[in-house]
């Protein structure tokens, strides 16, 4: 059943009927991210906002949501257009409940699409961008498998584009089993470059026609083997 139309959405979409380009940042905030990594990630989020704001279209089209996973999964920021997005200061603790994070991110995407559809807002294929320095921890293997299976299904049916990025220390072989697309590896703590790339990629998407793939700039921030 469709939910009732929320007044807030109705007003927001009437005010800004631009097509939306949704992106979930699914971020690992487990204990191992403590210190330099989380600081670099927080600076990267600010860079993301700043870079999107430089574009004339992106502030009204790109929608950002942030989901963190550690011992808990938190929707730190539900979808918001880039012009109203404020970079949070994330903190770290505990284990790596990645599979639960994946489910929350995919649920959030589906809920957002429902709202777009209710309000007649056109949209682009959503992206989930998962960044981790580890592997699922503190979760049953079956639960992790189910999350991976869900990513496979949602990619196959084109419901979402799901990227995995491994920070140093990430278990890339495990990550490869979870995400469909080849995981990218971050060189050092180069979060700034990563988020500039992500911002530019969102622009390419929000100004694109698919049927033909969007030409993304090759990421300059990845480890080249």
């Amino acid at each position, binding site marked *: 059943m469709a939910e009732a139309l929320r007044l807030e959405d109705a007003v927001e979409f009437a005010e800004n*009927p*631009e*097509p939306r380009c949704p992106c979930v940042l699914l971020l690992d905030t487990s204990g191992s991210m403590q210190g330099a990594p989380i600081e670099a990630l927080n600076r990267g989020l600010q860079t993301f906002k700043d870079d999107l704001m430089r*574009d*004339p*279209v992106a502030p009204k089209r790109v929608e950002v949501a942030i989901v963190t996973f550690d011992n808990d999964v938190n929707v730190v920021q539900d979808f918001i257009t880039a012009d109203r997005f404020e970079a949070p200061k994330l903190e770290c603790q505990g284990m790596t409940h990645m599979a639960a994070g994946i489910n929350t991110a995919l649920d959030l995407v589906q809920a957002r699409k429902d709202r777009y*559809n209710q309000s*007649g807002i*056109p*949209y*682009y*294929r959503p992206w989930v961008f998962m960044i981790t320095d580890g592997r699922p921890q503190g979760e049953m293997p079956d639960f992790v498998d189910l999350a991976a299976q869900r990513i496979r299904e949602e990619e196959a049916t*084109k419901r979402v584009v799901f990227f995995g990025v491994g920070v140093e220390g990430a278990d890339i072989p495990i990550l490869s089993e979870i995400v469909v697309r080849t995981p990218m590896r971050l060189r050092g703590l180069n979060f700034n470059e990563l988020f500039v790339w992500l911002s530019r990629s969102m622009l390419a*998407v929000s*100004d*694109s*026609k*698919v*049927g*033909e*793939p*969007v*030409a993304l700039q090759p990421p300059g921030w990845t480890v080249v083997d």
Partner: protein
Amino acid sequence: MDGRRLIARGLRWLRGDKAASQQFPEGLAPWRVVGASIAGSSHQNYGQPCQDAAGWALGPDRCLIVAVADGAGSAKLGGEGAQLAVSTAVNHLAGRRSLGSDDASKKDLIAALELARSALISEAEDRGVDVRELATTLILLQATPDSVTALQVGDGSAVIEDRQNGVIGLTKPQIGEYINETTFITAEDAMGHVETVTHQGKPSGGAVFSDGLQLLALKMPEGTPHTPFFDPLLRFVSYATDASAADEELRTFLRSPRVTSQTTDDLTLVLFALDGDQ
């Protein structure tokens, strides 16, 4: 204005900001046509040229032929693909000897689409590129004082106005779940996505436009025309006296904040009116 004429018979050709300068009736009688094609603000920002193309001409039995194509932004040569598709289709339709029944007109439009596809395929071969680099949508419209037939592959739309019913949508944008997913005539299965529609009865005017105007001109996602958008534009065309001045006014409108605050895409709009008492 430094426009160029592609072929005789009154074809005016739009590409980017150029349009031929002619006085009405410019050999198109009983039709008046005003059109503009401008690069969207997002394209200007990135220095990309306009990837839309539009053209129109008088065909057999003084029918009006209009074509609008939107080259894929993700394709390297989308703009050139759009231009080639429009010129191929318009040349073919304008060069026919006579018009047949409505069904024959539909077949003619389909034949013009097939020729445009072949032209893109051989162009791609000549250049040694994948035909997807020339990906474009295509809308074709043929109007007579008795009926209007339209064909569409991809997004954008063709609408007409008649005295009884007001503004009516002929073809609707073909979009998938996602706004940037559409069908291009270069796709292998493009012929399976062809929509053709005939409207019986005398049109007073109409419009063909690319997807850049969809959010303003249509109620989305239904794709039905937004009458308050078209009413003043169609009235404007039926009173226009100077073709190039009217084109310029239309361009100014498409560049005004009223429009640009809503869209950053390339914009192409071809409006036509049938002079009264025809």
